[in-house]
């Protein structure tokens, strides 16, 4: 430790090329946004299309349709047979897949850079020419129900998480699972999927991200050829969703399942997200989560795992990249023989101590040092950069916000952090969940 003293302050003085310098962006005439991230070290490209539409944009009653449609996009178009999209990517030595979240749905292929044009041709085709029949949708509905079985029904932790989210969001669709409530998934129809498709899949609702061994001018030419000719959807509405009412009571739940072997507790608070041109509070909360629950040296680990030895694991998270209000969360896994009530009391006490003690300046500097270094490491991981831009742009942020984010983080002060903590971490507006086995069978861990 001694031999390291002073290192943190003197390094990184001459900051080398930043990850942001690899980025070019422009917009097609039909409104489609394009981001190009250059990395010429390998002849490989990542081609992604992000739609500004996710599970939180669904109509009530058809939960899971955004994700269902994502599956159905592999089923064929007027010119592609079902499965031919992925088969073609594979036959060209590439990999493809897609993912759905609350605020976006994204499709990607990783492939040799000289196949970029083919990828754009196929991806632009399925943006508007999807061709589905009743049989496709019935088999695929079985698949997503098995996916729900695998991700959720077989996991008490995931089931508890659904209940906790539903308790956190009374009015906003973030309270409904992305994969959907099972009873609504079972009734999803072809028309449900197509209605969502027609509403949201359009160039003026999409972001193209191309990362790898490509030149921005060539990307522009291809993008204009394939995506640029698709007319925008004039019916596209501004993205306005219901907001949460004021929370007037702390919410608590106990989720019991005989499959739980290791009990734990989660706590969440509604928190502001990164907003375009206004990322300071989100930056403070990002660093606050690191300080409180970012690993071995974090405040909660110190108090609950090292000093008191009441927990085997502690963590804190804040997901700042979100279209609407997000959450700040804690997890505490109690040590053997420690009850959930004791663990929760210890967590609450630790938070009181934190608010009283303030921020350890050395810890804050270590976190900032790591954030600075992540700018260097990021240049080695172009896919991660591609995801960072896609996620941010689909969540209401601008290119400038993404580029400014590292500096906004560096500018965060102790006062900013404490002010943000004060504003967000109010027990009266908390949601707390305990996960445990039914008390009669709770022979372990209690």
């Amino acid at each position, binding site marked *: *430790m001694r*031999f*390291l003293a002073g*290192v*943190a302050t003197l*390094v990184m003085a001459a900051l080398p090329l930043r990850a942001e310098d690899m980025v070019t962006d422009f917009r097609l005439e039909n409104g489609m946004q394009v981001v190009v991230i250059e990395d*010429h*070290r*390998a*002849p490989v490209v990542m081609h992604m299309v992000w739609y500004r539409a996710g599970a939180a944009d669904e109509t009530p009653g058809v939960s899971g349709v955004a994700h269902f449609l994502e599956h159905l996009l*592999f089923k064929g178009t007027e*010119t592609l047979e079902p*499965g031919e999209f992925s*088969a*073609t990517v*594979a*036959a*060209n*030595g*590439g990999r493809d897949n897609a993912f759905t979240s609350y605020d976006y749905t994204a499709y990607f292929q*990783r*492939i*040799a850079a000289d*196949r970029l044009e*083919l990828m754009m*041709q196929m991806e632009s085709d399925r943006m508007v020419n999807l061709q589905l029949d009743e049989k496709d949708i*019935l*088999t695929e509905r*079985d*698949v*997503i*129900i*098995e996916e729900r*079985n*695998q991700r959720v*029904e*077989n996991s008490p932790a995931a089931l508890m998480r659904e209940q906790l989210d539903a308790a956190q969001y009374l009015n906003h669709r973030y309270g409904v699972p992305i994969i959907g409530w099972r009873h609504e998934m079972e009734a999803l129809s072809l028309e449900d999927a197509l209605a969502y498709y027609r509403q949201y899949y359009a160039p003026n609702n999409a972001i193209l991200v191309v990362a790898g061994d490509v030149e921005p001018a060539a990307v522009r030419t291809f993008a204009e050829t394939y995506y640029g000719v698709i007319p925008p959807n004039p019916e596209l509405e501004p993205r306005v969703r219901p907001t949460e009412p004021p929370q007037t009571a702390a919410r608590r739940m106990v989720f019991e399942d005989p499959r*739980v*072997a*290791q009990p734990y507790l989660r706590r969440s608070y509604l928190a502001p997200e990164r907003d375009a041109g206004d990322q300071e509070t989100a930056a403070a909360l990002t660093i606050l989560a690191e300080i409180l629950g970012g690993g*071995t*040296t974090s405040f909660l680990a110190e108090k609950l*795992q*090292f000093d008191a*030895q009441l927990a*085997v*694991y502690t963590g804190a998270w804040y997901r700042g990249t979100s279209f609407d209000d997000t959450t700040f969360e804690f997890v505490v*896994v109690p*040590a*053997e023989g420690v009850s959930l009530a004791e663990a929760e009391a210890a967590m609450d006490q630790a938070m009181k101590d934190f608010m009283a003690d303030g921020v350890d300046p*050395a810890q804050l500097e*270590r976190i900032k*040092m*790591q954030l*600075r*270094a*992540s700018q*260097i490491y990021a*240049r*080695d991981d172009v896919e991660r950069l591609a995801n960072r831009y896609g996620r941010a742009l689909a969540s209401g942020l601008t290119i400038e916000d993404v580029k400014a984010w590292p500096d906004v983080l560096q500018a965060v002060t102790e006062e900013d952090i404490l002010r943000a903590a004060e504003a967000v971490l109010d027990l009266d507006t908390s949601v707390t969940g305990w996960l445990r086995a039914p008390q009669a069978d709770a022979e372990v861990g209690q």
Partner: protein
Amino acid sequence: MMRFVLTCVLVLAALPLRAGVEIREVTSPGGITAWLVEEPSIPFVALEIRFRGGASLDAPGKRGAINLMTGLLEEGAGDLDARGFARAAESLAASFSYSAGDDTVSISARFLTENRDQALDLLRLSLVEPAFSQKAIDRVRGQVISGLRSDEKDPNAIAGRTFKALAFGDHPYGSPSNGTIESVSALTREDIVAAHKAALARDRLYVAAVGDITEAELGPMLDRLLGDLPETGAPMPGDAELSLEGGVEVVAFDTPQSVAHFGHAGIDRHDEDFFAAYVMNVILGGGGFESRLMTEVREKRGLTYGVYSYLAPKDRAALYLGSVASANDRIAEAISVIRDEWRRLAQEGVTQDELEKAKALLTGAYPLRFDGNGAIARIMVGMQMDDLPIDYIATRNDKVNAVTREDVNRVAAELLDPDGLHFVVVGKPEGL
């Protein structure tokens, strides 16, 4: 559209690999060998270190010792306690990760050029002078046991554990490398110190480095980092005898979706038919959405979200494994379809079209793996552990392309044993 696609398949030529990829073997003054790719464009280094033997070197009755020891390497070393060590790494923005598997203890490190020496000093401390304080042992043991407790009620973990036990019995491969609650609870500091001596020695060491470092710098660095480790460690474990027979074993567990792990004997990495088997598996169950298993079980019947098969050539045994998960009332059908596909491939072989597509996927996807300093370092250290020549990367796609339909069909007939396939099913399956 179609025509254009076909043309593209035909013109697919072997891609050049990463422009600057040039692996050099570096031997330190002290005799430690490493493979190096210099990549000065980003000011950091990715370093991968492997020790062969891994958790299979656990002494009898000490299951989980190597795993716990590995988890303790970052929990205090030299004069630093766990938090001191973590703070030091954070101050340098270096990251070190330590893990133990059946055959290997792995260390992955990444550190900046500007404080490389301090980062390496810190990494050295953790490998050569870990403190193994009783406090840290008890705390990390608590974390391991918490995980083991969760595994007791996790269908995937139950299936994996049951399959291992059936396949390998008393050999270390026959039990989870993180041990049991009982065995881990009984481990003492002496056991941890012994595990360190057994597993981290220079006679089983493999190193690869990629990034902003020269050959001249790497040699002395290796000696400083690893030169103080003992010359030799524990003797390697013997071969594991595979005691699997065909059939279905149900582990009753009250959950809506049954999880099945399945498999039988596989093929050694050094077998001359390995590439043919590898290509065959892409067609059967390893190639993503296009594999026969995905097509038949998921795409056509909607029985699962995912079904996979893979070759698992371990150091002391070779397996051919797979997994699937389906609702309790549908798992029997999924298993029946999988067994039928196993049989169909063994009896009828593959089509020329399937073979060409599998080769196109494998050869085209190979360069995509080299996508970052850490990834390249992991590939290089894996090549060394597999005893592959240093020019392997340049010849690998030729080996794939040399596989003929006759090779695949012959290997399929020899390797695939539909009746010998053993399924472990965890859940409340109906009709099994």
